[in-house]
């Protein structure tokens, strides 16, 4: 984590709202979570008032951790995760960031596969309207000797207005030769024909958009603590945007 106030020249802060970062600086120490060997951990994080939240998560040998993140609030909301996986550990991130107006929302992850046989899955969906900016910067680092690493980054963003911005940067740094690191990334708009089809059955435009967006973010909260509450909060936020 950075000790001095970052600028946009820092890759990890390139798309950030630097004024908001400066106002929050210096940041408190990151929250530290250690999942012991063979343990399991689950948490849902709802970021609904803005701010920068940093979490360091260490997942012990054979342990499993899953985080579900809904990043929706404040002028600037950043969630930064530094995850270290030990042998055979498993990490799941399911995240949605939904913003409108002039919001800047960011999810920044560094997943370090420190030892062999660990798995990580990241699924991130962003829905952006107005002049909002949504960013996902995700680095997967595979250490020397961390063979049989299996990691996946599945990142999609939906722009509701041409004035909104989505940034997505999956990044791989691999020092082992027997690994599987999948990454997929797509940024798009709502499908016009699907919207028309739904409206032709009687759904007003806002409802039609909402139902498509609900489907777009569906899946990120599968298996979450409070899955229903997260879905409901996400739907309410989507309702504000359409």
């Amino acid at each position: 984590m950075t000790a001095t106030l970052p600028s946009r020249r820092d890759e990890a802060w390139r798309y950030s709202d630097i004024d908001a970062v400066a106002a929050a600086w210096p940041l408190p120490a990151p929250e530290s979570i250690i999942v012991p060997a063979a343990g399991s951990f689950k948490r849902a994080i709802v970021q609904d008032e803005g701010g920068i939240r940093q979490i360091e998560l260490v997942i012990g040998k054979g342990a499993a951790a899953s985080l579900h993140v809904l990043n929706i609030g404040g002028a600037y909301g950043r969630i930064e995760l530094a995850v270290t996986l030990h042998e055979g550990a498993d990490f799941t991130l399911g995240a949605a960031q939904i913003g409108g107006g002039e919001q800047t929302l960011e999810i920044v992850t560094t997943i370090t596969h420190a030892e062999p046989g660990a798995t990580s899955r990241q699924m991130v969906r962003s829905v952006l309207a107005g002049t909002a900016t949504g960013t996902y910067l995700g680095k997967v680092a595979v250490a020397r000797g961390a063979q049989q690493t299996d990691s996946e980054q599945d990142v999609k963003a939906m722009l509701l207005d041409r004035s909104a911005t989505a940034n997505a940067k999956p990044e791989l740094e691999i020092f082992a030769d027997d690994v599987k690191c999948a990454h997929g990334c797509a940024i798009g708009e709502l499908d016009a024909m699907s919207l028309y089809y739904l409206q032709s059955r009687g759904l007003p435009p806002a409802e039609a958009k909402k139902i498509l967006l609900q489907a777009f973010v569906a899946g990120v909260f599968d298996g979450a603590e409070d899955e229903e509450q997260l879905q409901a909060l996400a739907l309410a936020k989507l309702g504000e945007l359409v």
Partner: protein
Amino acid sequence: MLQIENLHANVADKPILKGLSLTINAGEIHAIMGPNGAGKSTLSYVLGGRPGYEVTDGSATFDAQDLLEMAPHERAAAGLFLGFQYPVEIPGVSNVQFLRESLNAQRKARGEEPLSGGDFLKLAREKAGLLKLDMDMLKRPVNVGFSGGEKKRNEMVQMGILDPKLAILDETDSGLDIDALRIVGDGINSIMRRPDKAVLLITHYQRLLDYVQPDFVHVLAAGRIVKSGGPELALELERAGYAEIAA
């Protein structure tokens, strides 16, 4: 019920409909036939209000309302149903969820009470049974993984649930095997053949008309109706071809 007068419409600045007039009264079934590129699908999309289909002249009145001024969902609430030639697949959205929300949005627009979940499922089950579509398919995402015939039967289930006054069915028969064609034909008759309802069938072929007997048959060519007649016109077309009749 529907009066179309001198309708002109462009798609991507290209004139497709060039002065089409047609009147459909309650209780009637009309068939529009015509060669590829005549403007059949354009007519259905213009009446359904699809964005990108620009009306440049003429009028369309539906139950004394200016149809062309209405948004697609308002047309649906007013009782218009468009059966798509290529029903759209919508991953992640369940058929029953979207249909229930659609029906209740229509009912709300008409000042009616929403249908409860139980009543809706009962209605959906009845219409699915009518079209011999497994109820499980209705719980799946809209048209995803459906065969061509299942998609068309799903369109008819939707029509049954939404219970429109006027159905415009764009090549509902295409992609259907013989058995499915009979099921869809029976479905159309049972849902729509009522004194207070009307149907506009758009088709290439006579065969659907064996199951759904039209009262009037029109030939659409180069953006306007060039010939109208009774059911015998469809047979004549089948025998002689469009080139002969439309010439």
